[in-house]
């Protein structure tokens, strides 16, 4: 146990590694290592001269790891490294926002060249969810927690153990001091009264006076770190669907879609999509502004939506039984909110798809009838009663493209429909085939007698909705609030202490504040006003 404690001449047992005796403040010989044991220097008051244990013991692996994370230097480096990587990740879009059908392995090189390829190969395309990025952030958290524990504990010990009676050296080697004051009883009483006026707590012991205020300011950084930890915990909670959902769904007009992230519980129907632009003709006040604008200026993107909830627990793929929850108009920044979820307007494909195509069949300028091809529900055959004609749909390509193997479809969405159909009619000598594409109908043989015209097309829009749920926000708020309390606590209040030390009939005064020495000097003027106290000197500035 001998090397475990150091006995100060005042009788207090200090822990190994202590710089200043916790009780009387006398420097422990050989332990003022911070300033090279210079007897003339102002005392290093950091952590009250308490023993930062991690700096003292490095015996086991646990102690070594602890010591590593306790270091502010390590913490700063971790923050710098994380910042640099975070910044690098924003150079090109992250994978989830690349908005391209190309796979990532091709996308980055194609789009951004060599640097894009490097970006992809280094794994920056998926940085913020990568294990090493999460680990970096977590290490910052570890550093915050350990360095806080490692500083808070000795600081609290030191402040709790401090005595009114301090060692002469401790008082005389404070930064701001006043030596050899000849003070009368009156002077001392005035000083004490003034100190109390300045809201100091005044302690006395054997003629020694110790005044202190705003000790709680010292806890500011630790409170602020608790706030940071809560924010980190909140960000961990975000990984769970129960707490946080951020998803996206496309809904076409007239369509009901399952809302992703709700486990097939909620559905949204797009009743109508409204796209409006500013009209220079009807709205005169915009005429001037719109004069030089080539493209129409959008005024409103709106989805009239109905929200449903499945009343049964449908098996995957099974048609759910729906009950209406709510309905509303979703506009930019005006979401529809239901049961903790919000649906935001965030994308559009205005009139990008064909809902239906109406065609009329003619022979020698005589109509043989008309039919409407509903892209989603069209039957494979149409009967035109008036002329006993049958139209058979041979092939249907929702998004027509021509490949080496002939016509094909790029997707199931009728963005560029192609229809191959056969007309059989008693009016015709033989069956005739036609090809609908791009709002025109082309005969597939030169000798086709009939004629097919497109009489009407009905287009529809697809609306992109963002699904959001965030139950972590209150926790983030709490963390940020505590953070701010900690910042104010440490920033707007100062921990100030004054020691009056009687020695051989004169008084030495030592002063300490954790910040704002200028304010301290002003406060000292108020405290010593009308007394015989010599003016204070700043020992640090004298050098």
């Amino acid at each position, binding site marked *: 146990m001998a090397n475990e404690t150091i006995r100060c001449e005042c009788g207090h047992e200090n822990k190994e590694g202590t710089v200043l005796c916790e009780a009387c403040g006398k420097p422990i010989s050989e332990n003022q290592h911070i300033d090279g044991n210079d007897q003339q220097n102002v005392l290093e008051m950091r952590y009250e001269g308490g023993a930062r244990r991690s700096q003292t013991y490095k015996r*086991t692996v646990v102690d070594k790891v602890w010591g590593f994370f306790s270091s502010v230097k390590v913490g700063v480096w971790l923050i710098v490294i994380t910042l640099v990587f975070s910044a690098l990740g924003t150079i090109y879009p992250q994978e989830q926002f690349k908005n391209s059908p190309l796979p990532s392995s091709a996308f980055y090189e194609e789009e951004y060249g060599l640097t894009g390829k490097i970006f992809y190969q280094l794994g920056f395309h998926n940085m913020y969810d990568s*294990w090493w990025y999460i*680990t970096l952030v*977590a290490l910052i958290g570890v550093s915050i927690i350990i360095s806080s524990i490692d500083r808070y504990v000795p600081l609290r010990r030191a402040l709790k153990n401090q005595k009114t009676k301090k060692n002469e050296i401790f008082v005389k080697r404070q930064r701001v001091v006043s030596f050899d004051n000849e003070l009368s009883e009156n002077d001392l009483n005035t000083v004490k009264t003034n100190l109390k006026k300045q809201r100091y707590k005044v302690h006395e012991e054997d003629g020694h006076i110790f005044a202190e205020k705003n000790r709680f300011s010292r806890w500011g950084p630790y409170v602020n770190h608790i706030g940071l930890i809560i924010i980190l915990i909140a960000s961990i909670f975000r*990984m769970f669907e129960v707490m946080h959902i951020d998803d996206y769904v496309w809904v076409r007009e007239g369509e009901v879609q399952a809302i992703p992230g709700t486990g097939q519980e909620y559905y949204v129907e797009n009743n109508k999509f409204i796209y409006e632009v500013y009209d220079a003709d009807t709205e005169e006040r915009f005429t001037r502004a719109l004069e030089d604008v080539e493209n129409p200026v959008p005024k409103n993107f709106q989805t009239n939506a109905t929200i449903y909830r499945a009343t049964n627990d449908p098996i995957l*793929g099974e048609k759910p039984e729906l009950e209406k929850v709510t309905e509303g108009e979703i506009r930019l920044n005006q979401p529809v909110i239901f049961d903790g979820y919000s649906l935001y307007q965030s994308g559009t494909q205005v009139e990008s798809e064909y809902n239906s195509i109406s065609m009329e069949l003619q022979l020698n300028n005589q109509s043989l009838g008309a039919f409407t091809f509903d892209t989603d529900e069209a039957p494979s055959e149409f009967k035109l009663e008036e002329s006993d004609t049958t139209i058979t*749909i041979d092939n249907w390509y929702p998004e027509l493209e021509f490949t080496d193997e002939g016509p094909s*479809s790029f997707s199931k969405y009728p963005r560029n429909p192609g229809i191959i159909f056969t007309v059989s009619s008693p009016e015709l000598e033989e069956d005739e085939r036609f090809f609908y594409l791009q709002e025109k109908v082309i005969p597939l043989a030169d000798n086709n007698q009939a004629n097919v015209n497109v009489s009407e097309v009905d287009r529809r829009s697809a609306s992109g909705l963002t699904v959001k749920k965030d139950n972590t926000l209150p926790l983030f708020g709490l963390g940020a609030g505590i953070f701010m309390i900690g910042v104010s606590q440490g920033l707007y209040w100062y921990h100030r202490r004054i020691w009056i030390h009687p020695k051989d009939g004169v008084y030495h005064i030592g002063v300490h504040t954790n910040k704002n020495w200028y304010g301290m000097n002003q406060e000292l003027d108020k405290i010593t006003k009308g007394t015989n106290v010599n003016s204070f000197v700043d020992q640090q500035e004298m050098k």
Partner: protein
Amino acid sequence: MNKKKKRLIFRSVVLTLLVGTLVFVLIVNANSERPDLEEGVEAPNFKLDRLDKSGETIELKELRGQGVMVNFWATYCEPCKKEMPYMDQLYQDYKDQGIEIVAVSVDRNESVINNFYNSLDLSFPSTIDRQETVMDVYEVTNLPASFFINPDGTIERIVRGPVTLESLEGYFQEILPEKS
């Protein structure tokens, strides 16, 4: 207890908690990234309306005991259409040995599915994924995609892309129920 020992225990506990939290977060994160579907895991159950027999449904769970091929296709997908005849040809041989095929079309228009189905005179069950939810859960982005499911309901093999007659027969052998 001696103070040094106490401190060591305290530090170890704190470090273990922190490291434990980190590991937990990393595992959760890794799980959210990994596709839920892979060979060896149980195939998610689904229930779809049959198009070849109107009014009937087919549920994957009820096919336990049989080897099941779930094939995602669409009429506009040329390679899908090409593998259909192979599937039908083998279906004739393997149906009695306990192999079932569920063709899931992701088309929006039912009549074109039926059209194609009838034109090739196919005989295995034809279904439609109207809500697009099955496709979503099975993480089908490119067509065709086939899942070969063991009689016990686990996924034996995932084939993203077309199959040939030979390869298909091999896959069927893998999921063939044992003769009792």
